[in-house]
């Protein structure tokens, strides 16, 4: 079975631009979570979606938004990019909500110049 997939792998954007990152969960998984990992730190929780509803939100500004589609794939959108948004963005999927055992994708490395 395929694991969690994310696209694109790498992305370079300019300050002020908008970006959309995509995630496909493991088949049968209904929950998707998004994390931001800045170099040298542990991942930080951004959002969790379960059955297309937002179930959790971390301490990130409103420039960050997400949604989950009927096929359980998900998008993370970031508006008005700042240099500090440069990071590895990780998506994780799990069978259930409440942060049950999570499986991570390879990540999207975003560079903002």
């Amino acid at each position, binding site marked *: 079975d395929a694991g969690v997939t994310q696209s694109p792998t790498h992305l370079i954007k300019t300050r002020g631009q908008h970006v959309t990152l995509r995630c496909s969960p493991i088949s049968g998984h209904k929950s998707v979570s998004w994390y931001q990992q800045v170099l040298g730190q*542990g991942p930080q929780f951004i959002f969790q979606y379960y059955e297309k509803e937002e179930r959790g939100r971390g301490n990130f500004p409103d420039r960050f938004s997400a949604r989950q589609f009927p096929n359980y794939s998900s998008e993370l959108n970031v508006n008005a990019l700042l240099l500090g948004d440069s990071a590895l963005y990780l998506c994780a999927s799990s069978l259930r909500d409440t942060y049950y055992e999570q499986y*991570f994708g*390879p990540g999207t490395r975003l560079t903002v110049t």
Partner: protein
Amino acid sequence: GIQVEQSPPDLILQEGANSTLRCNFSDSVNNLQWFHQNPWGQLINLFYIPSGTKQNGRLSATTVATERYSLLYISSSQTTDSGVYFCAVARDDMRFGAGTRLTVKP
């Protein structure tokens, strides 16, 4: 929110040595996972262990939920074990520790 502390922050071992990594958390949690992050950034599941003890080959983990800590044991370490090990706990959200960077020298 819940605080997660991992120790030691850095660990250097010779191949074949054993090690113990610790994760302390500040409040009761529903779930706990250990991950290994490889040099390419991929987080690899090691254990889902909200309580009790599990073993998988040379790795084992123990979580004592009532005392708010978890331990990851690596025996007979290999160079491929190098990388960063993260503990993550979940209650209202998912919180990661800062990680333990393990370097195994040949």
